[in-house]
């Protein structure tokens, strides 16, 4: 047996995966409620008149008032995933609905949405519902106590890629030598209680930049090591709590803090489940009086479980486990190949920027889907002028077409700027402009540099088609940012 074969045949407790499934499902469910409660479904996906697309995914659009249905499907499937009920179907629906939402408007792109999509994709193929799940309860013959080690490692690897690439992306002169953009962002929080005065100090952004970079680069390795894990997790909590306090990054810190638990030992997760089950049993007895005496002894999610085998399938009573439930789950062989292709893509995709000339931060060609997080303070201004050959001319008021979020993103991201130019072209053609020409007075500031035009004012954007080819119509960046 080669080392590789040996690795792929290694088995491990299902507990960490089950805990991950439950927590992850609940967190997405929480995110959906938060999104809904904040009115963002309407303000981001129903109220705007126009939406931006990812190249090649123009067919994904919000569905008007039915957009709520997509969010409903997503919330429901996340809950089903957490419960481990109809898991396969639910995980597929969750992946599809969440990814659909993510792609409805490119101006709302966030790396952590992308991360959630990828995890959802992996979950489709993982045996996360074979214990501590309603599916396992319904089908005792499909319960397993052990799963292949590499199934669990796939999730760890995904997290490691996120952190490590986020760290690599920070190895650049703006981040390390100029403490940008933290130098701009931190003083904005100097009115915070306790920590506030720290952020007026000019050294702080440097300390945070370097610490953040080292954190990202090292944390996956530290989490992977048994000896270091507790300290590493302490660092995870400190880091993400700090980012949650400082920046408006929504659910991301919470998701990462919970997801990082996957690195802990099966024993840790089993204890977690036992404690939780005891707690539930306690509540259950309190509510139901003393009808079910077994409740306390059974240590189950469901205090009134009667069948010993089912109790075992919930994985709560090791000694009672039947032969069947102890059996190890063997993943279908195609899964291995799906994962190999998936991870190869994950490892290569962030480097696609190499194929584009020009400064990545400026052109953003190959910037998304690459774990480049919190790297830029970028602001822009774009005033469009429409002309035609008959002398017609109009200066566009962007607020008539876009929301303030869309406008902000459009001003600084060349592909969105071009999409908007085409929206304007089509709009003014309908208003009687003859083959409208679209010009822009653009101005973009990056990481504290003075603004510069992103596109020349003589460039007729109406005639330029978008593609994956380098955007030669972008005015080259005049400064030099060294590094990844």
């Amino acid at each position, binding site marked *: 047996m080669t080392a590789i074969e040996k690795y792929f045949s290694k088995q491990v407790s299902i507990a960490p995966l089950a805990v991950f499934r439950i927590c992850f499902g609940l967190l997405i469910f929480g995110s959906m409620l938060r999104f809904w409660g904040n009115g963002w479904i309407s303000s981001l996906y129903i109220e705007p008149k126009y939406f931006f697309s990812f190249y090649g995914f123009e067919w994904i659009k919000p569905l008007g008032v039915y957009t709520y249905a997509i969010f409903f499907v997503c919330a429901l499937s996340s809950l089903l995933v957490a419960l481990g009920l109809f898991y396969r179907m639910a995980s597929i629906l969750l992946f599809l609905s969440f990814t659909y939402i993510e792609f409805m408007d490119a101006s709302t792109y966030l790396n952590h949405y992308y991360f959630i999509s990828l995890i959802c994709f992996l979950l489709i193929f993982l045996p996360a519902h074979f214990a501590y799940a309603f599916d396992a309860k319904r089908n005792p013959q499909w319960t397993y106590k052990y799963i292949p080690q590499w199934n669990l490692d796939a999730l760890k690897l995904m997290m490691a890629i996120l952190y490590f690439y986020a760290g690599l992306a920070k190895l650049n002169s703006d981040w390390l030598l100029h403490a940008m953009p933290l130098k701009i962002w931190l003083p904005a929080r100097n009115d915070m209680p306790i920590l506030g005065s720290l952020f007026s100090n000019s050294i702080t952004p440097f300390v945070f930049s370097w610490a953040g970079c*080292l954190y990202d680069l090292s944390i996956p390795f530290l989490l992977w090591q048994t000896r270091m894990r507790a300290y590493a997790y302490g660092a995870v909590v400190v880091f993400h709590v700090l980012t949650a306090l400082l920046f408006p990054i929504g659910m991301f810190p919470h998701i990462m803090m919970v997801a990082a638990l996957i690195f802990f030992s099966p024993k840790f997760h089993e204890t977690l489940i036992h404690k939780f089950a005891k707690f539930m049993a306690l509540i259950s007895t309190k509510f139901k009086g003393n009808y079910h005496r077994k409740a306390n002894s059974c240590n189950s999610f469901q205090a009134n479980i009667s069948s010993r085998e089912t109790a075992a399938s919930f994985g709560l009573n090791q000694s009672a486990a039947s032969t069947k439930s102890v059996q190890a789950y063997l993943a279908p062989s195609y899964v291995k190949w799906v994962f190999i292709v998936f991870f190869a893509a994950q490892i290569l995709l962030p480097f696609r920027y190499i194929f584009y000339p020009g400064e990545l931060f400026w052109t953003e060609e190959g910037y998304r889907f690459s774990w480049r997080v919190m790297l830029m303070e970028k602001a822009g201004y774009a005033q469009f002028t429409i002309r035609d050959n008959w002398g017609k001319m*109009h200066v566009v008021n962007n607020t008539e077409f876009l929301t303030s979020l869309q406008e902000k993103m459009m001003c600084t991201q060349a592909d969105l700027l071009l999409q908007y130019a085409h929206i304007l072209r089509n709009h003014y053609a309908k208003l009687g402009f003859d083959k409208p020409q679209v010009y822009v007075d653009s101005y973009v500031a990056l990481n504290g540099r003075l603004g510069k035009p992103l596109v020349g004012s003589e460039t007729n954007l109406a005639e330029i088609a978008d593609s994956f080819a380098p955007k030669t119509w972008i005015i080259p960046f005049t400064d030099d940012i060294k590094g990844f």
Partner: protein
Amino acid sequence: MITKINLSVFLLAIVVLLSACKTKLDNPKPDNNGLERAAILSHYANEIILPAYNQFNVKFQLMAIATDSFIAQPNASNLSTLRSAWISAYTEWQKVELFDFGPAEKETLRNFYNIYPADTAGIQANILNSTANLEVPVSFAQQGFPALDYLVNGVGSDRDACLAFYTDTNNGSKRLAYLKRIVTRMNGLLGLVVTNWSTAYKDKFIEKTGLDIGSSTSLMVNGLALHYERFMRSGKFGIPSGAMLNGVIAPEKVEAFYEKEISRTLALSAHQAYVDFFNGKSVKTGLEGPSLKTYLNALDAKDGLTGKSLSQILNEQFAVCKSKMNLLQNNLYEEVKNNNQGMKNVFTEMQAAVRMIKVDMSSAMSITITFTDNDGD
């Protein structure tokens, strides 16, 4: 082991971080006081915004009195008193129109004070209908200073013709009543804004020191940016010169169309008030205090290539705009017709300033514009 090295470096970083915290807490550096936004907001509220509203209010009340005198006795002398009171109130208004945040934004003061060109047909219709709704968007150009411009300067070809408009036996009293109605309405709105600023809002303004959406600084900077772009650059120069639409000149869209000789004065007054606000120049003492300028300086916002500070770059651009305005004659209506390139030159320079305000300044200050999550662009 690489991980050991990483760990020790990481721990070292934490130690450095903690010691940096400690140093900071022990000796707060004096040069960082410029980053204290409460001081800036307080200076703006106490030394500029409130005194400026008070000064405007004084001029406005003089105009209101002159209006009452004219209504009581619509004669030549009272008309010329009203006209000059209108000019000085309108000029003073230019120094408060920029505060389009907080109470003024809540009351949408500008919409009821200075949307031009005046809708003369609407005004004539309103005169005949004493209950015409003056709160809907279509009524914006039927009230405020532009409507007063029409009513005191534009209803006749000369002074006697204007007087005749009000002494007309059929409609004179209705016309005077509309004049009164507009001034009363403006006065009421101004009262709400001034009262709100001097009572509840001032403390709230100073306390909300964040930079997130809804914070005072964010509201203020976004309001200032919009004011410069849409109401100074476009309104006063871009639209009349045709730089915004079809290149077709529209001289009749200048501010104070019926008293054209003051159109450039109004623009210069508005621009100077804007520059003074940026520099934190106290309306009371004329001395500069904590301001957007000092904040940008404390942030060390500058052009990385030349080392020139952003505040200086902005002030230089403002000076260029002013110099281009100074090249124009007082009557911008005539300038559009005879020297439109001069108008367009102002527009072009103001456009450059707009970019700096909306992009360089807002970005350096980390002003937030949206409610939603963000992972850093």
